[in-house]
C-alpha cells in the first residue's frame, strides 16, 4: 500500500512540474508572438507574399476598394491573464503593407 501511495505521489509531482505538452503546429491565422511578427515587417516595404511567407496564412477580410485586412492571433493560453494578442495588418490595393498594429 505504501508503495502504491508513493507511486501516486510521484506521478502527481511529475504532473505539477512538467510543462504542458507542446501544442500542435500553428493553424491559419495563428502566430507564436505578435510583437516578434510585427518587428519582422516594414510598412511600405513588406508585400502580401512576404508576409505570407513569414507568418503563414492569415484571416483575410478583403473589401471592394482593394484594401485587405489580415489578422493573426497568438494561440490562446489556458488561464491566461489577458486575451491573446492580435496582429492586424492593412494592405493597400497594390498589395503593400500600409499599416499594422498589435493589440
Amino acid at each position: 500500500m505504501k508503495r502504491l501511495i508513493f507511486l501516486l505521489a510521484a506521478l502527481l509531482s511529475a504532473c505539477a512540474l512538467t510543462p504542458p505538452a507542446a501544442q500542435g503546429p500553428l493553424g491559419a491565422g495563428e502566430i507564436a508572438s505578435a510583437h516578434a511578427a510585427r518587428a519582422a515587417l516594414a510598412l511600405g516595404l513588406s508585400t502580401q507574399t512576404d508576409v505570407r511567407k513569414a507568418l503563414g496564412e492569415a484571416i483575410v477580410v478583403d473589401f471592394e476598394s482593394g484594401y485587405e485586412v489580415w489578422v493573426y492571433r497568438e494561440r490562446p493560453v489556458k488561464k491566461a491573464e489577458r486575451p491573446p494578442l492580435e496582429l492586424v495588418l492593412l494592405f493597400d490595393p497594390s498589395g503593400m503593407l500600409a499599416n499594422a498594429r498589435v493589440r
Partner: protein
Amino acid sequence: MHRSLTAFIAAALCGAHFHAAAADEEAVTVSALRNPVDKSYRRMLSGAELFAQRRGELAPAAALRFKLLPRRPGTRLDDIELELVGDSFATPLPVAHDGTFELPADAAALKERASVRPNRRAGSMTWRAEVRTPGLPADVRRLGDLRLECEVGMRAGLISNYRPVLFRWLDERLADSPEYCRRAVPRYLFFADRALWSVTLVAGTRREVLSVDLLYGGASRDPDWKADLPYCDCEVLMDRAFFLPLGDRSWPDDALVHFEYMDDTP
C-alpha cells in the same frame, strides 16, 4: 431637433392610444402594398420622442437627425429625393449633402399614418439615426451620443436586415428595442464616414483600441461573412462598420471614440 417637434411629440404621442396605433402601424409596414424601403413616420417620430426623453442623461448638447446610407453597390444618394407621404398629401423633405434630414412635426402625417419615402428601390439603401454633439473634430464621436443613436435607431425601426433563417429572424425581432443597446456589446452596426483602420475609446487617461473583432461587422471571426452580406444593411459599408461596447458602463458617456482611416498616413 426643433422645439416645435419636441412639443409636437409630447402632445401627439402621450398615452396608450399611441402605443396601440404604433402596433397597428407595424402590421401595415409588412403589407405588399407598401414599398419596403419606406419607413413609418409614426415609428420614426417615436424614435424622436425617445431622443427627447433620453437626451438629458446621455447626450445633453446633441441634436438628432436621420441619415440615409447606401446599401447596394452603385446606389447614389447625392441626388436622392425624400417625401413624407400620406393618403392625401406628399411633402418633400430636404436632404443635406451628407444624407441627413430632419423629421418635421406634422399632425396630418401622424393621423394618416404617413411614410417617409425616398425615390430609391427597396433594398438599395438603409437608414440610421444620427446624434451629434457639436464642436468635436471630424474623426471623433462621443460615446453617449452613440448610445442614444442606437436606442433611437432601434425604436424608430431603422435597421433593415433581412435574414433567410427563421430563428435568426426571430432573434432579430426580439432584439428590436432600445434595451438591446444596453447589452455589453450589442450587434448594432455603426458606420464611420470613411473606411476604418482602427477605433479607440478614450476617457481621461484611459485609452483602449478596440479589437478587430468589433470592426467590419465581426468579419474576422466569421468565415461565412460574405455569404451573409446580402442580408445585412452593411452590404457596401462593411469597411466602415463597427460595434461598440455600449453596455459597458465603465466607459462614461463623455468617453470619446477616435477613428483612424485606411487612407490615413501612418
